C-alpha cells in the first residue's frame, strides 16, 4: 500500500508539489530561524562572558547589588589571598581580575591645554604578565587596528571610533580624570599606543583598555578588584557545573551578613541574562508554533482542495469496500510522506542558508549604535546537531494536523450517495 501511495504522490504533482513546497518553505524558515537565534545566543553568551560576566563572576556582595554603576568604592579587597584560595579549591578554572571604571579622557595640545575631551568607559585587565589569559581571550592581537599592543606600564589602548572622534594618534599622551575607590579625584597620564575595534558597538563607542596594575595604582585600589571573572578551561559555558561551583563557593566564602564578603554569580544569573535567555527560548517556541499553525492551515486548505479533486477516487475506494478508517489513515500516511520529503528538502535548504550565514554573518552594527548589550555587530548563524532535526517538528506536525482535519470529511461521506455521486 505504501508503494501505491508513493506512486500516487510522485505522479500527481498537484497532490504533492504544493504541499511539499509549503512544508519546504516553513521548515527552511524554521531551521534558518533556529540557527540564527542559536548564533545570536552563542555570540551573546560568549561575548558577554569574555567582556562582562565570565562564566561565573566573583564580586563583593555590595558591588554585586549595584554592578550596573561600576561602584569601585564597593570593590572587593584582599584579592591576593582569595586568588590563592581559589586556585587551591578550584584549580581547573581560569581567573581574570578586572576593574571597570568611568572617567573623562583628556587630550592636551603642545601647550598642555585641553585639545579634546570625552567620557570613557574603562576596563583594566592584566595585559602585561605572561600567564595572563586576557590577550588571547579578548582577541587583542586582531582587535588592534592601529598602533600596537601595550608592552610596558603606562601604555593603553582605546577604541578606534573614540580615537577618531577625539583625533588621537598612536603615541599620543592622554590624561584619565576619574575618582579613587575612596572617592578622591584621580588623574593619571598614559600613552595611547594602539586603537581597538572589537566589532561590538557598546565597546567601540568609547573604551579605554589599560593594564590592571596601572589602574590599581591610579585609582588607589591596591589588592582590590571590582570583579574576578571565572572561566571553564575549555571556555564553554556549562550551566549545571557553573551552578554547582557557585553554590560551593558561596557556601564557603560568602556571608549574607557581611556586605564586603565575596559572592559568586553564574553567567545566567547576572544582569537579567536568565530573563533574556528565557525570552529568546520563548521566542523560538512561538516561532515554531507559528509555523506549525500557519502551515497547518495552509495544508488543511490544500487537503480540502485535494479532497474535492479526488472526490471520485475517494468514492470509488469507499464503494470498493475500503474502510473509512483505512482510507483516512492512508491519506494521513500520504501526508506524512509529503511531510518527510518536505522536511528533508526544507532542512537542506535552511541549513544551506544557515551555513552561509555562519560563514558570512549579517552586520547589524548600524542598528546597534546606542546598544548597551555586549554582542558582536556581525551576527552569525550557528548550526548545531539540533538544527538537523528541528524542522521536522513543524514539518510533520503541520502535515499531520492539516490532513487530519481535512480528512475528517471522509467520515461525513454518505456511502448511500456514492452511486449518484459517481455517475457525474
Amino acid at each position, binding site marked *: *500500500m505504501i508503494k*501505491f501511495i508513493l*506512486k*500516487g504522490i510522485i*505522479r*500527481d504533482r498537484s*497532490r504533492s508539489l504544493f504541499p511539499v513546497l509549503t512544508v519546504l518553505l516553513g521548515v527552511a524558515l524554521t531551521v534558518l530561524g533556529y540557527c540564527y537565534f542559536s548564533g545570536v545566543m552563542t555570540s551573546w553568551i560568549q561575548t558577554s562572558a569574555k567582556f562582562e560576566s565570565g562564566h561565573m563572576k566573583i564580586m563583593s556582595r555590595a558591588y554585586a547589588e549595584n554592578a550596573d554603576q561600576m561602584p569601585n568604592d564597593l570593590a572587593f579587597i584582599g584579592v591576593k589571598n582569595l586568588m590563592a584560595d581559589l586556585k587551591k579549591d578550584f584549580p581547573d578554572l581560569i581567573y581574570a581580575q578586572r576593574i571597570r571604571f568611568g572617567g573623562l579622557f583628556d587630550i592636551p595640545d603642545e601647550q598642555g591645554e585641553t585639545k579634546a575631551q570625552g567620557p570613557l568607559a574603562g576596563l583594566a585587565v592584566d595585559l602585561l604578565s605572561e600567564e595572563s589569559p586576557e590577550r588571547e581571550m579578548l582577541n587583542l592581537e586582531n582587535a588592534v587596528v592601529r598602533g600596537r599592543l601595550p608592552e610596558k606600564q603606562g601604555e593603553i589602548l582605546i577604541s578606534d571610533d573614540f580615537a577618531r572622534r577625539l583625533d588621537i594618534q598612536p603615541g599620543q599622551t592622554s590624561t584619565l580624570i576619574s575618582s579613587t575607590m575612596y572617592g578622591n579625584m584621580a588623574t593619571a597620564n598614559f600613552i595611547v599606543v594602539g586603537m581597538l575595534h572589537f566589532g561590538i558597538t557598546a565597546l567601540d563607542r568609547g573604551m579605554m583598555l589599560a593594564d590592571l596594575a596601572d589602574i590599581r595604582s591610579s585609582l588607589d585600589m591596591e589588592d582590590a578588584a571590582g570583579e574576578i571573572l571565572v572561566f571553564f578551561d575549555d571556555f564553554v559555558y556549562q550551566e549545571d557545573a557553573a551552578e554547582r561551583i557557585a553554590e560551593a563557593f558561596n557556601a564557603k566564602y560568602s556571608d549574607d551578613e557581611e556586605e564586603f564578603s565575596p559572592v559568586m554569580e553564574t553567567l545566567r544569573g547576572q544582569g537579567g541574562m536568565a530573563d533574556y535567555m528565557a525570552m529568546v527560548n520563548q521566542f523560538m517556541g512561538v516561532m515554531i508554533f507559528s509555523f506549525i499553525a500557519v502551515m497547518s492551515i495552509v495544508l488543511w486548505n490544500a487537503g480540502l482542495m485535494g479532497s474535492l479533486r479526488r472526490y*471520485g*477516487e475517494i*468514492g*470509488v*475506494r*469507499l*464503494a*470498493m*469496500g*475500503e*474502510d*473509512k*478508517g*483505512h482510507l483516512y489513515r492512508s491519506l494521513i500516511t500520504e501526508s506524512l510522506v509529503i511531510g518527510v520529503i518536505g522536511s528533508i528538502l526544507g532542512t537542506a535548504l535552511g541549513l544551506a542558508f544557515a551555513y552561509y550565514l555562519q560563514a558570512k554573518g549579517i552586520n547589524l552594527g548600524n542598528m546597534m549604535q546606542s546598544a548597551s548589550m555586549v554582542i558582536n555587530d556581525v551576527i552569525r548563524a550557528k548550526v548545531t546537531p539540533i538544527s538537523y532535526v528541528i524542522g521536522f517538528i513543524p514539518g510533520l506536525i503541520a502535515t499531520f494536523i492539516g490532513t487530519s482535519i481535512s480528512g475528517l470529511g471522509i467520515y461525513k461521506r454518505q*456511502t*448511500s450517495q*456514492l*452511486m*449518484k455521486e*459517481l*455517475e*457525474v
Partner: protein
Amino acid sequence: MENSFLIKTQDLVKTYPMGHTKIFALNGVNLNFRPGEFAGLVGPSGSGKTTFLNIVGSLDSPTSGSAVVMGKKIEDLSHKQAAWLRNQNIGFIFQTFNLLPVYTVYENVEFTLLLLKMSAEERKDKVMQALEWVKLADRAKSKPAQLSGGQSQRVAVARAIVKEPSIILADEPTANLDAENSFNILDTMEELNRELGTTFIFATHDEKVIKYLRRKITLVDGKVAKDEALEQKKVKGGNQ
C-alpha cells in the same frame, strides 16, 4: 431452497424525508437472486433501481424490511462490516468509469486486491487474468487518459471482477458508451457470468442491456411491477 439465495429481500422499504412527508423509494420489495443470475432492474427514473442496488450493495440500509446478502443482514451491519462485505463479495461498475487517473490500468485493477492484502505474486496473476478476460492485457501499462471510453469501462469491469466477487452491481454501465462498445462490454460481462458464475445485477433502462438479460425486474414507484425470465434475443457481438 431458501439457503441457496445469494440475495433475499423481504418487504424492503426505503423512504426519504421530503418536508413533512416521506418519499417511498422502495415500497415493500420482495426479490431473491440465486448465484449466477444475469438480471436487471428496469423502470423509469425514480422507480427505485439505484436505491435497491445501494441496499444490496451494503452502501445504504433499509428503512424497514430486510435485505440479506451472502447470509448477512444489511440492516444489522456496522459501517465497517458493510465495507468488509463489499470488499470481499461485491464488485461495482458505474456509469462513469471512475478510474484513478494517475495510476496505470494494471494498478487500477490491482488496487482492489491491495485492500484484500494479497501477496504481490498472487496479485500479479489475478490482475493479468482479469485483464485477459476483458482483453486489455496489452494495455496494462497505459494510463486511463490513453484509453477509449469502451476500454475504460472494460478496465472498470476488470477492477470489479478481479477479486472474483459473488455479486457485481452495475448501475447504467453502458450509459456513456456508443452501441459498439456497449455490446462489447455486455459480451464481456455475459462471458464472465457464464465462466465464473458471478451474479450480475444491472440497473438500466438501456434496451441494449435488456436484450442481454435473462431476468428482467420492472420497478415502478418503488414496487416490483413485473419479474420475468427472458429468453435472450441477442446474438454475440450485439448483432440481431
